[in-house]
Structures are given as C-alpha cells and as structure tokens.
C-alpha cells in the first residue's frame, strides 16, 4: 500500500517530470487513437457501404481468357476474338432463372444518325471497323470484319423502367412530358433537354433518324418526354471530341420492342449495328458470388465472365478510404515505434537521475523488487492519465482529422486524374494501384463516421500502458544492477 502512496506522492512532488512523461504518453495515445479510429471506421464504412449496395451483374465475353487461350493454343488471337459471340437475349434469360436473381432487365442499343432537322449535340462522323457482334432480335448478324458506320445518336431500347438506370439512380429525371410505355412497339421516345433545345423540339413532336450506312432509310419516333441529367455536364465531357454518340445528351430512349422493330426493318445490306445487354439484379456480394457459381452449373462456358460494374465502382470509390487506412496503419506503427523509443530513452534518462533515490531506498531496506514496483506504479499512473487524456482528445478530434485527411486523399486522387486527363485527352484510368493510372469513379466515399468501440479503447489503453511499463522496465534494468553502497558512494 505504501508503494502506491509513495508513487502518487512522487508524481505530485516531481510535477515537471510527471507532466513531461504524461505528455509523451498522451501524444502517443492521441495519435494511436486517431489512427485506430480511422482504421476501424474505414473498415466499417466499407462494410456498411457494401451491405447497402444493390449489386447488378452482366455476362460478357471473357476476352482476356480468349486471348490467353488463343496464345496458348497457337491460334490467331484476332480470329478467335472475331468469332466470339455475345449471349443472345434468350440465353441471358436462361441464366435469369438462377434463384440468386431478384430481377432481370435488358436493353438493346443501336447507333443511328440524325437528319437536317435533328443535329446531335456535337457531331463527328466516324467510320469504325469492328466485328459484328449483333445479337439483336433480328438474329445473329455476324460477319467477320463487317464495316459499320457509327451514328451520332445512341438509341437505347429498354425492357422496362428498371433498365433506365440513369433514371432509377436519380442521375437523370424527366423535366417535361413522360416516359413511354414498355408493352408494345409504339415508336415513342424520350430525348435529352440539350438535344431538345438545340433542335427546338417539344413534347409531342416527332424526330427522324436515319441508318448511318444508308441515309435513305429513315425511322420516325414521337417524343413523349424530355429529360435532364446531372451527368450531361460531366460524363458528356468525356465523349465530346471523341464520339458524339457517347455523349449522354445524344442518347435517345425508347422501349425494347420499338428498337427491335427499327433494327428488323433495316435492310440486310446495311444492317443497323445493335447489341443487347442483360442485367441481373442480385443484391448482395454473396449473391453475386453464388450467381457466378450458378451460371457455371447452368452451363455457361468459361469463355464468358460475370462482372459487376457496381462492385467494381464501389471498390474504386473506396480508393481514398483504402489509402487513408494504409496511412493510418503506417501512422500507428510509426507512433508506437518512435514513441516507444522516445519513451524508453526518456525513462532511462529520468530513472538514471533517480539513481540516488534507488540507493537510499535500498539502503534503508526496501527490496529492489519493491523499488521497481514503485517506479512501475508511477509509470502506470502517468500512463493511465496520459491515455485517458490522449484517448479523449483523439476521440473528440478524430472526426475533423479524418475528414481533413480523407478530403486530402480525394483531392490528391482527383488531381492525379485531372493530370492524366490533360495528358491523354481522356480518362485512361483502369486500376488505381500505386503508381498506376487512377480508376475513373463518379464519386468517392467522402465521409467517415468515426466510431470507437470498447475493444478499441481497451486495446489502445493496453498498448499505451504496456509501452509505458516496458519503457520504465527497460530503464529500471539500468539502475537495479547497481548495489546501494555503490550508488551512495558515487553521490558522496
């Protein structure tokens, strides 16, 4: 008991020394606390985000595998790639039978041109050499090396409202009129506000599109609505100067059956390029994994792959958070490492200063283990106070610190993207790995809700107290090896 009393009294009598050691422990606890909270919060934010994600998937040709198989088998990769066919709608619908699929929707896309009365928001005529991979309702229209002329407009025929992902996600919204119905080929469409303004089109007007390969083939659609979208000003920039049809402002939505009718009515000499894309709504990441297994069991060839842009986008959106977590881990290790060394050196210095005290205490009969216990009690008490203050401050300041650090990470990544854009003229991001190009992500996770559970508090307190005790123990070893008479005679 007297050891604790003595330790407490020593701490109060040597205020400067106690405050200094306490301050070091406090700084270690403060920095560690912030680092731990960031690590924990980043982890939970990522998990929460993932669990809230409604994952959708598509099935596409696994080009990478085809290429590597072709190389391994000594075949011409170009020939193999040209012969690769996308799944037909019927095949896609087969896989929609998987019990993991909550919903299945599809859309058909085709490229058409305007007329004198319908100019695209920005026009470029481009002829693109590409393999025919049409799997539209008109049946396969394969022809290796067929030349198609790309139009200025992308016409999207959707199966139902779910397939209008820009609208369901809130990126686009009707500003005038309404969306067409989906049940029959009614030749109705919705167009962007920009396109409507440019061509002075109102709801109820008709627009005329032409086959890019044969301008005499025309298709008339009635405008039932005009939409505006927040992505027009952003995503459109990526398309501009590259391909007008990629500009969201030049996207025309109609229903699937209408577009099927347009594609079917095109002449066989100049078929309309079209492709169908099916989307499976799966919900959770677990369902996504199960769906991958299911489709294989259902007979999907390994030359096809199931991918989820939601998942990829989400993982990419975590990039600043992942970087922040890495930073926090490094910070934690550095603080504990450097802090531990400083604390040990400081403890050695202080305990050497107190060598005389050790000599007196042992000379009056206090056992060395009790002297050590007293010194460790002092270290423990200081550490507890330092940890309490440091953890309290850390918990209070972790939110603003985390916000600043995360914002810094995001701006750094965005700056990197801007640099790449200016260097390449367009986005080239794919992976986002260190040193590599940065993935193009619509928005990054930019908020962190620092939370600290008791296990974090306890482990932090434990780490700091242990560090403090270890530092003092290391220092005590220096002093405890001396005999009391030697210490006292050195003083005299």
């Amino acid at each position, binding site marked *: 008991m007297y050891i604790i009393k003595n330790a407490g009294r020593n701490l109060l*009598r*040597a205020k400067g020394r106690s405050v200094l050691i306490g301050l070091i422990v406090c700084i270690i606890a403060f920095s560690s606390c912030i680092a731990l909270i960031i690590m924990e919060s980043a982890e939970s934010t990522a998990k929460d985000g993932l669990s809230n994600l409604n994952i959708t998937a598509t099935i596409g040709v696994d080009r990478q595998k085809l290429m590597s198989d072709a190389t391994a088998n000594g075949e011409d990769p170009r020939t193999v790639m040209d012969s690769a066919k996308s799944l037909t709608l019927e095949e896609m619908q087969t896989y929609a039978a998987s019990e993991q699929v909550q919903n299945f929707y599809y859309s058909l896309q085709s490229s058409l041109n305007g007329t004198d009365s319908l100019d695209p928001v920005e026009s470029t005529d481009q002829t693109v050499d590409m393999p025919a991979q049409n799997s539209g309702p008109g049946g396969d229209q394969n022809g290796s090396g067929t030349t198609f002329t790309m139009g200025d407009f992308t016409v999207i025929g959707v199966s139902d409202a779910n397939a209008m992902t820009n609208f369901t996600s809130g990126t686009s919204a009707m500003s005038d009129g309404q969306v067409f119905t989906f049940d029959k080929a009614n030749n109705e469409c919705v167009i962007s506000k920009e396109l409507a303004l440019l061509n002075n089109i109102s709801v109820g007007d008709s627009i005329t599109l032409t086959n890019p390969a044969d301008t005499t083939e025309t298709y008339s659609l009635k405008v039932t609505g005009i939409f505006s979208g927040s992505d027009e000003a952003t995503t459109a920039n990526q398309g501009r100067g590259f391909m007008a049809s990629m500009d969201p402002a030049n996207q025309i939505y109609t229903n699937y059956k209408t577009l099927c009718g347009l594609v079917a009515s095109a002449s066989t000499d100049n078929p309309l390029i079209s492709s169908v894309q099916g989307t499976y709504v799966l919900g959770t990441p677990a369902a996504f994994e199960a769906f991958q297994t299911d489709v294989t069991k259902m007979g999907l060839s390994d030359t096809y792959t199931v991918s989820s842009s939601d998942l990829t986008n989400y993982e990419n959106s975590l990039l600043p958070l992942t970087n922040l977590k890495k930073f926090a881990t490094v910070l934690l290790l550095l603080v504990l490492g450097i802090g531990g060394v400083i604390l040990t050196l400081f403890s050695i210095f202080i305990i050497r200063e107190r060598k005389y005290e050790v000599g007196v205490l042992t*000379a*009056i009969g206090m056992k060395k283990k009790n002297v050590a216990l007293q010194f460790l009690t002092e270290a423990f008490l200081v550490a507890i106070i330092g940890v309490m203050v440091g953890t309290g401050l850390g918990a209070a300041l972790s939110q603003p610190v985390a916000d600043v650090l995360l914002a810094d990470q995001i701006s750094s990544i965005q700056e990197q993207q801007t640099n790449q854009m200016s260097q390449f003229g367009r986005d080239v991001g794919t992976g986002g790995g260190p040193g590599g190009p940065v993935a193009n992500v619509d928005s990054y996770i930019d908020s962190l809700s620092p939370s600290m559970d008791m296990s974090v508090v306890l482990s932090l307190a434990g780490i700091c107290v242990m560090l403090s005790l270890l530092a003092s123990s290391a220092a005590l070893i220096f002093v405890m090896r001396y005999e*009391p008479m030697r210490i006292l005679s050195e003083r005299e």
Partner: protein
Amino acid sequence: MSILEIENLEYRYRNGNQVIDGLNIAFETGKMIALTGKSGAGKTTLVSLLSGLTSPTGGKILYENQDLLAMDKYELRSKKIGVIFQGYNLLPRLTAKENVVLSMDVSGKAITNKEARATELLEKVHLSENLQKRRVLKLSGGEQQRVAIARALSYDPQVILADEPTGNLDQANTEEVLEIFRSLANEGKCIIIATHDPQVTQFCDRVVNLEKKPEN
C-alpha cells in the same frame, strides 16, 4: 550477550588495498561501542560491512550467531539494524516526517500510528513541528542529521549503526543525541558509533580503535 560478532574480518578494495585485516570484535547488547581510528582506518567500511551494504572479502560477520552473508540484507536493514549514514541519505523530495514514516513503512513492522511515532522521534531530536513538515533539502546539515537519527530509530531496531552521527551537531545537540543513544542502550540495544569526536568516545562504554593499514 553478543548480538553482532566479527571473526577474522577482511576487506580489500578493488584496487587491492586492504583496509580491514583479521579483525575480531564482539558487540554486546545494552552497550555503546565507539569505533575510532584515523581517516581511512576503515570505520565507515566496517559500518557498511556490519549493515550488509558491503560484503566482506574474508572472514565472517554473525548476527545473533547467524552468518550475515546468508541473511536477507534488506530484511536486516529494514528491521534489525538501524543505520545513520555519514551523508544522511535522506530522500530530498520528502519532508522530514515523511522520511521517517517511509522507513517504518519499509520495515513492515506493525507500528500503530506511524505519524505520531515520527513526530515523537523528531521532537526527541529537537526538530520543531515546522521543520518536520519541511522537505529535507531545505534543512541544514545538522537538522538533516537529526532526521537521519530519528529515521534509524523509527522501527525500533536491535542495533544502531551510526557513522559520525554528531559530526554536524553542536555540543548541546550532541549531548542530547548521546543521551538518546544511552537510553536506547539501557533498553538493551547495541549502539555502534564510528566517530572522531572525543566527546562521543568518552560517553561510550567501550572504544574499538581501528588501525590504519599501510597502503600496498
């Protein structure tokens, strides 16, 4: 009756100088014994050897017929032998009273009301209440010496080993301290005093003169 005995005691410094060579003394209870001799004769060394702070290089020290080497030295110094160091060896951050109370705490002896006992002992060595509350750093040499004496007496040891205990005291205070020692000896304690002071040697029951050994 002897409480402490030394047989053929030898002590040689690390540099090879032999300061004590074949010393035989028996220290009886109820007696005040003065250790005298010129500077360097080994008085302080003998006090260190008897308190277990230093181990002999030859011979034996027996405490109640037990070899000191085999005993727990910390137990010996905290319970059985009270040491008054020449340099006082007080804890500077503590007050006079706290130094005395701490000594009782360390001894682990069942002493009721340590504060009151400390006050009583400090008053006995004429340290005023005001001075008792002062940190020892702020006390004069003589005052510190009196605190050291009170501390050595605090846990009621059987043997008091005092190294020049009156070196910083005036004549009146010296007489007071010697009277305290006398009364303790009368209670059956063994008081061993290393001193140069003839006033002290005259007061003791027995004087052991240590001869200075010629340096090698």
